[in-house]
């Protein structure tokens, strides 16, 4: 079977001519000229041009993550070109789910920054057919286990964990069994794998509900990964009959108790409580919500044995948090707990603009202040230490219900949670004194009032490129760029995306001087870092080139 015809349906489309700006007609009328930028490149399969592959373009920052702007289909030699691309930051991805990059260190998608009317070329994707692992999952009685998640782990994951036991295990892929207990995972990179089903103590478990749970078993029937049979996957190979026999389901238990006001001792109705499981030094998310009833009582079900801690769901507008409370589930339900609500740490004050501007002031209603605590104590309810507050017409805000710790304040757009374009926090003052940058150290229950959060607004633009000299970037290399005000350790400025060519672009900067930190990291390479200072002006685009020297470090 030749590859060329596989994507024929997509070829039939020729190049799909979606309107370049889907939203333009719904948005207020603007003077839009047709964008003339483009992205082009080639998709190859084992070095030969791959015909009929849909290459999709998606905006990196969008309120709708599924908003596909445009797509193109490769021609008979594997070339594609997406035309009429407006300036912006994009992710380019070939839609070839059964295929994988030739070099596993390469990302399957590439980010590309397109300037005004810029033609970005050579965004290439070299692919090979991925491998397949398929098999059947049965229970202890030989019956198929339906809708069971099967995870595929790279053997190296476990080797790395052996060296640093704190490391969490993430699956490289996975799938669900069907009504016959059969699963099939495709598009796997060549490599050595272990295949597991069920729940494990040291892997990342994405929220289990009340569904019956099995303890993790690796193919064929190994309760721990050291006894798992390793599956070798080559380019385009298929491993069949990778069956797994699970044990009995794990019994789950319930927790019940009453939520009371720590001061008055009265029951607190209609609040959402959750628990997180404490495993070694980390917290595991538990997908369960408990709502207190009119008597303040709550019940939660489906908990497997382990150590748990309560937290109050954020943004319930009570300004409280739960007093640290842990409990253990061993072999029975836990009931009769009394959980106390205590006064949360809070911050309040006003948001002001560094330079008065009525038009800019009107935009504050679209923004929110956020706060989170970096916990200094290990067990302090990691999830309950975040809060957000809208900015009232008079500029006032209230961030409540936090726990004590190192408090970080940020600003974001209500719509998407991203740092808003143009705005940044210049400084935070109290009683005319500027508070130190970074965090504010706060005690549990402390109420900090009279804060002045000074925002700067600007429309300066920084356009940069990171080049390397004295060497080539190894496969899988990543370039990072971070922006900070001079001397600032922790920046609340948005981090720009660096594209596949090392380009980055930052709009809406307040005029002033900034530090631009650029870093290159790659597997088996010592990371390199460079800092450059740059000054920007309102309404002006400043170009910046940063060069990173890849000369191997001299051995002393």
């Amino acid at each position, binding site marked *: *079977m030749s590859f060329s*015809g*596989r*994507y*024929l*349906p*997509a070829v*039939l*489309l020729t190049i*799909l001519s*979606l*309107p370049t700006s*889907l*939203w333009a*007609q*719904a*948005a207020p009328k603007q003077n839009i000229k047709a964008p003339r930028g483009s992205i082009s490149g080639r998709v190859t399969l084992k070095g030969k041009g791959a015909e009929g592959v849909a290459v*999709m373009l*998606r905006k990196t920052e969008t*309120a*709708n*993550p*599924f*908003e*596909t702007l445009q797509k193109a289909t490769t021609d008979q030699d594997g070339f594609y070109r997406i035309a009429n691309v407006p300036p912006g930051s994009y992710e380019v991805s070939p*839609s070839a*789910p*059964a295929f994988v990059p030739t070099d596993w260190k390469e990302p399957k998608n590439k980010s590309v920054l397109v300037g005004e009317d810029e033609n970005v070329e050579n965004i290439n994707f070299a692919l090979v057919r991925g491998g397949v692992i398929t098999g059947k999952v049965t229970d202890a009685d030989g019956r198929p286990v*339906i*809708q069971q998640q099967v995870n595929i782990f790279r053997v190296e994951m476990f080797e790395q964990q052996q060296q640093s036991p704190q490391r969490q295990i993430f699956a490289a892929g996975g799938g669900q069994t*069907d*009504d016959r207990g059969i699963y*099939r995972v495709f*598009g796997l990179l060549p490599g050595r794998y272990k295949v597991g089903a069920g729940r494990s103590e040291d892997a990342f478990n994405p929220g289990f*509900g*009340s*569904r*019956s749970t099995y303890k993790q078993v690796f193919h064929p029937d190994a309760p721990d990964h050291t006894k798992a049979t390793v599956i070798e996957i080559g380019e385009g190979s298929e491993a069949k009959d990778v069956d797994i026999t699970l044990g009995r389901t794990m019994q789950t238990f319930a927790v*019940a108790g009453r939520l009371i006001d720590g001061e008055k001792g009265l029951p607190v109705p*209609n609040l*959402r409580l959750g628990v997180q499981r404490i495993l070694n030094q980390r917290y595991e998310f538990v997908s*369960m919500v*408990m*709502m207190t*009833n*009119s008597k303040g009582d709550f*019940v939660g*079900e*489906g908990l497997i044995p382990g150590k748990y801690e309560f937290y109050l*769901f954020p*943004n*319930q*507008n009570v300004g409280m948090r739960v007093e640290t409370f842990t409990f253990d589930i061993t072999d029975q339900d836990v009931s009769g707990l009394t959980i106390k609500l205590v006064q949360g740490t809070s911050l309040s004050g006003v948001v002001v603009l560094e330079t008065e501007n009525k038009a800019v002031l009107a935009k504050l209603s*679209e923004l929110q202040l956020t706060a989170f605590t970096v916990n200094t104590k290990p067990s302090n309810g990691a999830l309950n230490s975040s809060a957000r507050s*809208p900015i009232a017409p008079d500029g006032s805000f209230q961030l409540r219900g936090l726990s004590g710790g190192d408090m970080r304040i940020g600003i974001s*757009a*209500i*719509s*998407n*949670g991203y740092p808003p374009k143009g705005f940044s926090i210049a400084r935070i003052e109290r009683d005319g004194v500027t508070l130190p940058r970074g965090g504010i150290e706060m005690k549990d229950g402390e109420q900090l009032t009279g804060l002045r959060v000074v925002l700067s607004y600007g429309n300066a633009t920084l356009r940069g490129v990171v080049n390397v000299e004295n060497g080539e970037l190894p496969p899988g290399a990543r370039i990072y760029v971070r922006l900070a005000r001079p001397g600032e350790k922790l920046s609340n400025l948005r981090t720009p995306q660096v594209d596949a060519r090392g380009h980055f672009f930052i709009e809406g900067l307040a005029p002033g001087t900034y530090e631009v930190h650029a870093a290159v990291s790659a597997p088996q390479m010592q990371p390199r870092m460079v800092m450059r200072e740059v000054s920007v002006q309102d309404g002006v685009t400043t170009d910046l080139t940063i060069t990173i020297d890849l000369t191997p470090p001299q051995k002393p």
Partner: protein
Amino acid sequence: MRLQKLIAACFLLFTLCFVVCAQEPSATPRKVNEPTSGFIDGKVVNENGQPLAGASLFVRAVNSLGNARTTTSDLDGNFRVNGLEPALYTISGNAPAYTTVPGDPAAPVYYRIGDTVRVEMIRGGAITGTVSNALGEPVIAVRVRATLIRDARGEPPKVSSFGVNEQSTDDRGIYRIYGLRPGTYIVSAGGAGFSPSFNPYDSDLPTFAPSSTRDTAAEVTVRSGEDSTIDIRYRGEPGHIISGTAKVMGQNGASITLALAGSSIPIATMFQQVGARGFSFNGLGDGDYDLIAQEVTSNPSATLPVLALSEPKRVSIKGTDVTGIELTTRALGTISGKVLIETSKVAECQGKRPPLLAETIIRLERPEKEPDKDDLLYARMFGSSASPDTSGAFTLRNLVAGRYRFEPRFYARYWYLQSMTMTAGTAAKPQKIDAAAGWTTVKAGEQVTNLTITLAQGAASIRGRLSVPEGGAVPAMSIVLMPAEPDKADDVLRYFVSEVSGDLTFAFNNLPPGRYLASIETQPPTLAKLRQPESAPVRTKLRRAAEAKKTEIELKPCQNLVDYQFKQ
């Protein structure tokens, strides 16, 4: 923001997760001293009545913010949920590859503490096949959807099971959709899925099996526990787009639902975040569609959702994209009032347990024929009932403009529904309107107040048997009770209907004391229908027939008439 989106999605799921059990709540009298908490237990069985182990059960209090209580059926299919407070509960079950017969959304079944519930689950069927292109090569990772068009009884579905009936093809182009409710389906590949994804086939026109448009799609019959196979030759023609903006009132964004014109079953939904420029559905073919925007305007974690809804908008696609659609959400109407519980001084009624407000619900009834816009989902679902608080006050929310009647349900053997009145006019000159006799009209966004529902002590009951001539075949019959007092002829709350069961017994509960006429009917209207204002001629006719028979029953307060022999 993400949390709010999730909550919105959860509400959507809750409303669609319909109650499945076919058993009527027990009407058995309760002990005088009601426990403050208790349990509901039951059994999960499969389509052959065999116990089903490992099924998840969700026990949820109606009109409550609280989380559903969950449990799993044991090896014998049994389950029990402890520590429940008095309330009305719905119960739903879920087991992989199994499905349930959805209940009638217009007639939900509620359970109370002490009830034993039988939950029936049916092994679903599967549809499987290969999606290939014109050259016969597999189409990989295209979404395939099975759409139920008629249920096992040949009727169009009232409740959709969208979202779950979608699967992507694997690297061989093979799909398998399982756990399908028995019935007749059409199968399509490509086009917009129920929820958005990042897939190149989403913008294509869906190809219906075997290789056609919706009009000429092949029908696939699905039977419990069986596989049906149908392959799809994928066409990959470009689809069209409907896009626009929902203008909203609050900060929670809006969900936009797309349905085929006139259909109440959505084909796609998407969420417009606050601040987002708009919404867009792609992969659509020529034809007429209805769009509606819905917004939660309350703080979703603090109260039951208060919604704003747009007018449904009909959009036609004729070979080109449709952009710039505007949907503006508007506040919905409410009806608020209170439930009064009146006790009686009659000696026979002393010490009888009153209804619990927590186990009382006021359901809404709508005229059968309203414009099709009323079929468009959410409003009907959210606005269908209200539960009184501890003082008896209740608010029916999220009502689209239209006419409504009220159907209170309560659980106390010796109480009856005495009256439902609205107070209108001025404070100096109040005017009482009988809300039981007529429809109450709610204008767009109107807040109607002062509905008083009075439950009075003194209800009587009848247990009886129909005596029929020997040897005669007995057709399905019902007995209709109606007031005998001529001045009470228009009191619709005095009309009752009871089916005569196979052993010829019948039962009436919660009857107001008084004199009744009875008649036997082979095709009586439902009680709700009989009490509607439009049924006045039917009631007159029934009374005439009953008066001629001269069968009169007198019921004293709290009287239980047993072994009543009713002659045909």
